[in-house]
């Protein structure tokens, strides 16, 4: 076998991918040629044994997702980078304990949640979403500057509402509604029964719906653009 550095680092890369080896060295985080379950399992196994290149690949693949989840739970941009680092430090320390019995994403969610909870307890303060730059708004071609500003204002208002939720309810709401994690997985992540997760989600939704009415930029929404419009309106 040709003992090239790329092949040694990426033994499972297909021959077609190897033809492109001159164009990149590391495993790209979103390449369709390399994002396979087998590849991730291989990377995880190597990273668990101390392979820094493998760990780097895992980090690059998941760092944006972790950043988004941390932001939605913590809010304050100033702490974001520190918490992201801490998450991956914990991943590095604990990867040996990951036996592959659950999805890696579930395990990573759990590590992220734990780090955020520890961070918040250490801070002993509630997050505030007062930084304008904390909320990103993607400028799209169909949005003008006024509409973009309106969207940012809506997101800031929603972030304020999230901040007012109790921690346990906010956590399940963010994981389920914003991150798309099923309740059964959330139950594993937070270490609570599924019924408890659903109960917290129920109350989180109810409280947020009440809060929407208190935010002028959100109370005017009429649900005309809802992608999940229920068959009947109103709260459960």
């Amino acid at each position: 076998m040709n003992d090239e550095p790329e092949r040694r680092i990426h033994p499972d890369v297909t021959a077609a991918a190897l033809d492109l080896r001159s164009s990149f060295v590391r495993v790209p985080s979103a390449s369709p040629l390399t994002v396979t379950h087998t590849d991730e399992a291989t990377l995880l196994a190597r990273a668990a044994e101390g392979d820094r290149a493998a760990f780097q690949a895992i980090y690059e693949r998941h760092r944006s997702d972790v950043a988004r989840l941390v932001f939605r739970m913590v809010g304050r941009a100033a702490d974001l980078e520190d918490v992201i680092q801490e998450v991956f430090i914990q991943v590095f320390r604990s990867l040996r304990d990951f036996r592959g019995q659950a999805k890696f994403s579930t395990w990573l969610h759990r590590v992220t949640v734990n780090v955020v909870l520890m961070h918040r307890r250490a801070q002993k303060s509630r997050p505030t979403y007062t930084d304008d730059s904390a909320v990103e708004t993607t400028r799209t071609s169909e949005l003008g500057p006024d509409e973009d500003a309106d969207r940012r204002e809506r997101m800031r208002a929603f972030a304020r509402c999230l901040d007012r939720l109790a921690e346990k309810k906010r956590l399940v709401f963010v994981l389920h509604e914003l991150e798309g994690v099923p309740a059964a997985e959330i139950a594993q992540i937070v270490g609570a029964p599924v019924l408890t997760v659903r109960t917290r989600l129920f109350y989180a939704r109810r409280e947020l719906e009440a809060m929407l009415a208190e935010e002028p930029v959100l109370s005017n929404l009429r649900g005309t653009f809802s992608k999940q419009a229920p068959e009947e309106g109103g709260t459960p």
Partner: protein
Amino acid sequence: MNDERVSPQLAEVIAEAKDHLAPGGIDWRRVDEGLSKRLDIEASRSRFSARHAVWPAVAAALSIAAGVVLVMGKPSREPTLEPVAAKPAQSASKVARVSGVLQINGAVSTTDMELAAGDRLEAEGQATFERPGQLLWALERGRAQIARAGAGVVVALEAGAIEADVVPVPQGEALGIDVGSIRVAVHGTHFRVSRQGDRVTVDLNEGTLSIGPAPRAGMTIGHVVTAPAHVTFDASAFEATFSAERDPSQVLPPIDLASGQKPEAALAAQTTPPESDTPAVKRTGRVHRPAPPTPERVPEIPSAAEPSRSPEQRIVSALRGCWAKQARPDSVQITITSSLTLQVSASGSVESAQFEPPLSPDLQTCAADAIYQSKFAAAGIVKIPIELK
């Protein structure tokens, strides 16, 4: 994914937030550099002899005491690997057994995890910890924090109970249980500390305890109690409320920590479960005024044949009657302590009632009639200590 109904307004906000509630302006280069430095520190703590070098400059800077040379791009073949997680030099204890769910710092824990100073514990059932040859202790349906992990372990009990089996040490105190500013210090014994709010119960089966204000350093100075002893006090008024009984029949029997015996008596005596923010299970000590009597509902009021009894006595009597109706295992002796605070109006009627710590909802509801139908001689706050056996 969304399997339950959400209002159209909230659904719209969620849909927008999924795409647009995200952090902006992350300096990934700074995150990468910071992470790299921290990973190097982690690596230098372990006994890895070789690693992949992702960042050549960093890899070149690594030096390992064992003197093994790093090879760029080559996986390590050294079998002598230490766990990456750097644990403190001295562990407070190790998780030996868990019945139910144990969380350490908010994360679900498994056995063999080491405890360190600062770790916060929450046990839904019983979690047993050991320092082999020195300590065996269990946290039952409660919360605690490891305040100190050294030669002498100190655990701050926030709620629930801790039972411990302690081997005597030649100097100092092998284990201390802090309740607020009060410490139950152990010199070698089998004992149990149970906390409900500020009410503390200590059952000593063997050995000696010292109970007093937690010292900044050195030995705990206070009441020295020898077995057998059943001690009660209010942590907020320690000296005024301290009481120790030597009657062995009052002392809760010990559980066999080594075998993981379930403390049925202790679990049944726990009337204040761990905190939950789910309204369906949240318990308060507030006693709600019962609904006006209906023809079907006969309120339980004190007997008119006992006019000489004070309203406080009648309330306690009614509570004992409610308590006696509750089913319990025959072989178990359970003691409940609480304090009932009444707000009495100018007319002598009870305006509000609060148990601290809360009793079970059934018990509070049962006693509500007796409480709100009592008449006092004067307005103000009335506090009634409650002990039910």
